[in-house]
């Protein structure tokens, strides 16, 4: 991948120019879907866009010293990392890529939640700290499943290149991996039943409590981009591969849309779990998944 295509991917497609409206669209779809399931009409189209613009126009909280600088920096880091993660998605066929971009994508996807943890602790509010502690516990518990899933997919098809993975036909083990990824997504995106770090009824807005104005707008954006990247990753792994450009984009968007609807449905049909129940849940999933992965790997080995 040369410099021009890399920049084009990062900035235009599927990077920022595509991903930001995509993020707003997904945020709207999620809110609208939840509203419809609750028998309401829900927010108008473009609501996340208006929220974003309005937040940009609000006064910025005064921040002083290194702590203040860091507090300003966290949302920006989160946004750039999430945008980078979106840029790595091989939406267009033969769009280039490199061996190991899956690892980079994973690392970038992890950055926003690290930033949230750091932001909560540097906000020095008790609610921010509790929210961060919860986010940390949550990310430790779901990430094991998440990484296991990705690793088994990559190992079963002998590549760490997303591009190659997208072109290969799906194996049963990959479906298992995709299922495990889907189980992790609600926790990664702070959705019910795992919406612990931002549990409004317990700890205000958690790590975001002290954020306001443009900084909050950045957090909203990074959250939206995380949605795009995470659903995009699953869509890439699950969608059938086509060589025709526009059709590829259409399939990608349709799959992402489907995943968003599914996650919203789950979120609106469940109550929030407590932290220990959540951790137990993910450890159980890990155990089941590990057993399944090992047994299917052994099975494949014996067959070959």
């Amino acid at each position, binding site marked *: 991948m040369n410099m021009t295509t890399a920049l084009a991917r990062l900035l235009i497609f599927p990077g920022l120019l595509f991903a930001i409206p995509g993020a707003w669209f997904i945020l709207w779809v999620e809110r609208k879907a939840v509203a419809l399931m609750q028998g*309401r009409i829900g927010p*108008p189209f473009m609501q996340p866009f208006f929220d974003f613009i309005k937040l940009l126009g609000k006064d910025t909280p005064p921040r002083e010293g290194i702590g203040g600088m860091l507090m300003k920096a966290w949302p920006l880091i989160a946004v750039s990392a999430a945008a980078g993660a979106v840029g790595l998605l091989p939406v267009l066929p033969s769009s280039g890529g490199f061996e190991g971009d899956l690892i980079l994508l994973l690392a970038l996807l992890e950055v926003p939640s690290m930033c949230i943890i750091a932001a909560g602790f540097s906000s020095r509010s008790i609610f921010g700290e509790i929210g961060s502690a919860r986010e940390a516990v949550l990310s430790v518990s779901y990430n094991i499943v998440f990484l296991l899933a990705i690793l088994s997919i990559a190992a079963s098809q002998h590549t760490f290149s997303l591009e190659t993975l997208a072109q290969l036909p799906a194996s049963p083990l990959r479906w298992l991996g995709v299922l495990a990824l889907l189980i992790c997504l609600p926790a990664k995106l702070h959705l019910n039943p795992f919406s612990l770090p931002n549990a409004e009824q317990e700890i205000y807005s958690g790590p975001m409590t002290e954020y306001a104005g443009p900084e909050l707008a950045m957090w909203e954006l990074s959250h939206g981009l995380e949605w795009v990247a995470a659903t995009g990753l699953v869509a890439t792994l699950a969608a059938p591969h086509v060589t025709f450009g526009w059709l590829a984009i259409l399939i990608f968007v349709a799959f992402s849309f489907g995943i968003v609807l599914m996650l919203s449905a789950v979120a609106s049909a469940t109550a929030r779990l407590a932290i220990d129940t959540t951790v137990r849940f993910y450890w159980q999933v890990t155990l089941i998944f590990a057993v399944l992965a090992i047994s299917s790997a052994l099975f494949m080995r014996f067959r070959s």
Partner: protein
Amino acid sequence: MNLWNKLMCYSRRRSPWLFHMNGGSCNGCDIELIASLTPRYDAEQLGVRLEGSPRHADILCITGPITHNAVGAIKVVYDQVFGPKAVVAIGSCPATTNVFIESRTLDGPLNKHIPVDVFVPGCPPRPDAIIQGVAKAAEILAERASKKLPVAPVVMPLVGEGCGGACACGGSGGCATKEVQA
């Protein structure tokens, strides 16, 4: 007014985020505020969102006749909301202290402490009246952004039938008196 300002005004009107505070209210207005977010009234159609932190909010919704204990907290929360911001006084209590007038444990009305932009009368106001008041406050926010001028407080019209204490009896329960004497 350039394009960016126009967009900003429009966005402010379309995205009012609320923070709700109870200044010693009887609960009636608070429940009606919650009811305005639920399927029958669904304020989210206007982009309304009830926020957990005052830092995120644009509009401060205050109910109740402002007790001594609440005054300090109300001022602190008012300062925590970043501008541009608006204050909506929900119900007759924050406007006049309603039936609790003359109580020595009250420090109302609300505009003694912080500037109020919209008064929504009623005891309590109906959810549709509350939504109307919030929409008006969002309009005021947009205006304030374009003109940078303080806007005079607006008193919303009374919505719905029945007095419910919002009439001019001055909180003395005079309306009930009239009914019995008539």
